């Protein structure tokens, strides 16, 4: 189930450049590559064998198709990403998904978007109690289930 390894077959520089285009800078936050998220993405991707293989394959494919990606300008980079997205949607999805996961677990991002950043448990959330009055209209309705 868990590979628990760090994937050393991924070019961290290509990933960082890719991240910069996927999630650009906003307000006082730099783009995702500049935030230094590539290392965490590589670590997390190694936590399951199946995903690790898909992600490594995706990054390998992307890098081999676009050997000059890092030195290309933004417009060319975006075109390369869109071509990869179109031609290899499942591979691209693995890159996009883990990029979003790692970006949105970063405390700097939480602070900017006003997200608590807590894990779902153990604290949970507060909800207002059940209010019976909302059923007032439905309780007036005649039964309409089908008699057998």
């Amino acid at each position, binding site marked *: 189930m868990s590979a628990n390894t760090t994937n050393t077959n991924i070019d961290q520089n290509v990933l960082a450049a890719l991240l910069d285009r996927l999630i650009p800078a906003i307000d006082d936050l730099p783009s995702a590559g500049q935030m230094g998220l590539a290392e965490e993405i590589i670590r997390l991707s190694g936590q399951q064998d199946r995903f690790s293989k898909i992600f490594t394959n995706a990054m390998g494919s992307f890098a081999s198709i676009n050997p000059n990606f890092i030195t290309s300008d933004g417009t060319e980079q975006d075109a390369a990403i869109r071509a990869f997205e179109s031609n290899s949607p499942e591979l691209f999805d693995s890159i996009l998904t883990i990029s979003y996961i790692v970006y949105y677990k970063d405390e700097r991002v939480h602070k900017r978007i006003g997200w608590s950043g807590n894990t*779902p448990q153990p604290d949970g959330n507060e909800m207002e109690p059940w209010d019976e009055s909302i059923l007032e209209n439905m309780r007036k309705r005649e039964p309409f289930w089908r008699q057998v």
Partner: protein
Amino acid sequence: MNTQNATAEETVDILVIGAGASGGAATAWLAEAGFNVKCLEQGYWQDPSKYASASKDYEFEMLTNWAPDPNKRQREEDYPVNDTDSPVTPVMFNGVGGSTILWTAHTPRFHPSDFRVKTLDGVADDWPLTYDELEEFYDLNDEVMGCSGINGDPANPPRSPRQMPPLPLGKDGRKLISGFEKLGWHWWPSDSYINSQRYGEGRDACNYCGHNHMGCYQRAKSSTDLTYWPRALRSGATIETGARVRRITVDENGRATGADYIDAKGNERHQSARAVIMAANGIGTPRLMLNSKSDAHPEGLANSSGLVGKNLMFHPFAMISGVFPEKMETWQGPLGNIGLSQEFYETDKSRGFVRGYTYQFQRSLGPAWIAKGGFRDPVPWGEGHHEELQKRLGSVMGMAVIGEDLPEEHNMVDLDPELTDSHGIPAPRLNYTLSKNSRDQLDHAIGNAKKVLEAAGASDIHVDPMMRQSGWHLMGTARMGDDPKKSVVDKWGQAHDVDNLFIVDGSVFVTGAAVNPTPTIQALALRTADYIVSNRQDLKG
């Protein structure tokens, strides 16, 4: 495979295969009645404190090590399912508690009409039992599992009081409901096997973490490892985990004698029993029966009808979601346990299809879940990403359509000629096509869902016309009936061909209704167990 090295075991009265929703219920009932019951479960006990919801990497875990699809989860205890020829992928969990570990615990009941579709609508077959015959077992199951909900639903017959009041609707739930109210369409608070207050043994109230579909850290969501299994074990039942069953064994007359299995250490073993109960779900049970060919059962165990594995039913799901202008903290509260609508549940042939559907209301979760898309396409990357994320976060609500999928023999589970599990046992293969009637239901539901969302104030409505990862409800693959030529088990779940073989999971469903099936599965399991207690004392050693 020879079993010469198998360790001799005590012969038990009843051997149960699978420790999930139905296996737990049947085991507890029989053990409390004095039967010597043993269960073989290929998975393991779960520690709620280690569920993914308490991990900082919970979003990643949901896609991988805790994914509901076994083909993505790929734990040692999982088996692969070839779903290449199915637009719906299977969803299940292998462990004590089975799929109740990862379910949302949304627990409506079948309607009385669901048991009489042939008589009422001229399609499929009637069940060999009625809602009234099953009602007392629904009630018993509610008591053990613990149901939050409220009486008075005009879409359903009157019934016994729930154990707890409904879960609160929340700002988001009330907003969605306003659309139904404006249209004058039915809605009602969900029945959920989730504690709205403390209930059961060591089970706290829900703390609305929103991630009940990934295991409940709080033990507020009911799963059979927390409900039926403690009772079963106290009554003397035993369970062996990490035990993968290779085949059900039979004697020269074709009667079940137990099971060959591989234990957690990899040893080939045999467990002998006076009767066997299959509770391995609507894919696992036919897989095992088809893997249990013998001279007495050359087409697979209890398969003289040829129907083992046939008539596979899912509930094809469509998902319609919208973005509301308000921020409603939609990540607070169980994901799919707000309410339902059964305005279009019963047949109205003027709609162009038979049978009907339920809407199950859906929340949305945190920023990573939203960015990945949730029920929608992912938030676009690049320019405009941040604006779109902010627009959706806390503002997306959805309606899942659960349509009634009628049985068709060509929809089936069989054995893959090449794919095997980690022990070399042939894996199941799905062959499933959505029928025109089911497609017409979904399309009708999509149109009406748009009206609801718009009436409630949502915009940017997104439609997933059929969710791929939606095979939660696995039904029909060893159907019950009175005629041995047209069914695998009788009205008590006893195999027509083998009088000491019983099936208690969703395989026995004749039709699937348009609601989540687990309360019905468990009620049927209790009914079968009650039949054994009352009529099969010969199975006691």
